């Protein structure tokens, strides 16, 4: 390779980097104006910190049933700010540890769902013809399935584990993303620079990964953020129905324990309230972030604070 060509390549990549940096900065400037989105982001940062610092905040043996520190079903006190469950475990400790599983499942399931959706969407949009029609028919069919029921059925017939839950949520929620990404792919591929890339000898793989993918990424980002809150709610639902991993503490599982311990009929609201508030807070935070991202990318939607 000759020297001028090398510098040209360098400046091209530097240019691309600079452009990317400036578009991120532009995105952030615009995002900053959405007060609800900022609130969501702050709430998420706090919750993520709590989840990461769980062993420091609550100790690593809160889940142990055998040497629990308190008596069964104690009311909130100085030692146990949120009271104890039927095994004498500190509810605050369980709540802190539950953040981990909720966030893990939410993030992983949404990532899986969006990955499948993006792949299907780009492939269906790039290769037209009967192949695309077939894929979109399958997608449409998934779209009319009752997602929750399908996830429940999958979790029932497979073994109980966190991975089952992630898989059950991931493989049932991708069609919305696939439809959006396909539409965006079609829009991108009708532009002249794709024709130029083809003329210069770019193959299918090159066009899909280098030209289409970067252009659908913003959409995918918004979709992921919105998908996470759905995944977190579904995870809590599955755990509440007793389909979660029995060895892991989760917010939905805590609610199931509370119901089994008779917290409802004996009026132990302090056992029931915190896990639900935690689920709602995380889901709301992701929804607010997702809506803010969506309205930054597509101001016409009018969901902003205008």
């Amino acid at each position: 390779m000759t020297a001028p060509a090398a510098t040209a390549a360098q400046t091209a990549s530097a240019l691309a980097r600079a452009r990317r940096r400036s578009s991120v900065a532009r995105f952030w400037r615009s995002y900053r104006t959405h007060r609800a989105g900022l609130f969501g982001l702050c709430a998420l940062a706090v919750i993520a910190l709590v989840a990461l610092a769980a062993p420091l905040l609550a100790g690593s043996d809160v889940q142990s049933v055998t040497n629990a520190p308190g008596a069964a079903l104690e009311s909130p006190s100085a030692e146990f700010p949120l009271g104890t469950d039927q095994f004498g475990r500190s509810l605050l400790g369980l709540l802190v540890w539950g953040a981990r599983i909720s966030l893990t499942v939410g993030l992983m399931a949404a990532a899986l769902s969006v990955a499948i959706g993006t792949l299907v969407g780009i492939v269906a949009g790039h290769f037209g013809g009967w192949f695309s029609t077939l894929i979109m028919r399958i997608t449409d069919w998934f779209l009319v399935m009752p997602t929750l029921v399908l996830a429940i059925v999958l979790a029932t017939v497979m073994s109980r584990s966190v991975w089952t839950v992630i898989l059950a949520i991931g493989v049932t929620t991708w069609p919305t993303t696939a439809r959006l990404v396909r539409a965006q792919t079609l829009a991108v591929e009708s532009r002249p620079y794709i024709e130029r890339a083809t003329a210069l000898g770019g193959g299918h793989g090159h066009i899909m990964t280098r030209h289409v993918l970067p252009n659908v990424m913003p959409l995918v980002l918004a979709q992921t953020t919105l998908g996470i809150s759905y995944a977190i709610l579904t995870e809590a639902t599955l755990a509440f129905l007793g389909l979660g991993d029995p060895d892991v503490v989760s917010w939905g599982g805590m609610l199931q324990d509370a119901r089994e311990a008779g917290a409802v009929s004996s009026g132990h609201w302090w056992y029931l309230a915190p896990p639900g508030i935690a689920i709602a807070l995380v889901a709301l935070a992701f929804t607010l972030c997702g809506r803010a991202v969506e309205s930054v990318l597509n101001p016409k939607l009018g969901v902003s604070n205008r």
Partner: protein
Amino acid sequence: MSTASTAPLAEGTADGPVPVKTGPSGPRARSARAYLLYVAGKLGGAAVSLFAVLVTSFFLFRIIPGDPVRTMTHGRQVSAEQLASLRHQFGLDLPVWQQFTGYCVKALSGDLGISYQFHAPVGELIAQKLPATLLLTGVAVVIYSVLGLWLGTRSAWHRGRLGDKVNTGVALTLWSVPSFWLGLLLIITFSVGIGPIPGMFPTGGMESGGATGFAYVADVAHHMALPVVTLVAVGYAQTLLVMRASLLDEMGSDYLTTARAKGLRDDLVRRHHAVPNALLPTVTMVFINLGHVAAGSILVETVFSWPGLGGLFYQALSVPDLPLVQGLFVVFAGAMILMNLLADLLYPLLDPRVGR
């Protein structure tokens, strides 16, 4: 519209073959024929979806759990002969495709198998529980559609004001709340009672028994209040957001400026011009919600011990009673397909631009 436009179509077909797309028989005949084609397409699509549901349910329950006979006899001592006879009894010794065609034929004729735990036909169990679910979800969907449309309209019309922010904020917050948790809290607060609040509502079930006539209706309504409130609170946000977005889309339109220029009052512009157009996407939503809510009521019915399909599904899951879970899966998916079909068929009648 449909009666006026089918007459020319009948003439057109009686006169002989008419070119399919650009026939000279006038726009009305063309639109009626287009609608029939559209209906046929949607019916075909629904049939394909239904078939796909049967395929999924067959494979989910026959293939993934491994050997169904082992699941059935889990934890019990069984001899090889017993296993073989069970396999024969359930038709599991036949080739997969024969099992599959047998399953489809049975399912389509309403035979969904025998429940393990109730020892009764699954179809019969579902038919028994269906009315309770229809009552609960029907009332909830009507209430939250009306509420969502009303609040969504107000929100969009006064966009950016305090009322709009409070409205959307409350709806989004309630939307993020798990329905089963809200149900449990409502039971604690209003059925069991906290502090000064006495228990005013029953903790679960559908009736206290013994009441007849008007007293019976009042009793069921009393039992239904909290489950309906839960479903409405968690569900109305979606209708609100769709109505708000679609009305905001319309609000920039020229025809609204024209209507105002004619001197119409703001209220009339909203009611007679903007809202009817913005309603279109929301109507589809209502139908799709009807399909969703049958499945979505699983949790609310479980929490409130409502004697419907959702509660039955939960009972089936905890065993797990696979034939019952499978039958309910087919019913829930079938409900979704049916509601989508209805929405698709209704839509071109409301909006002539669709399906032409």
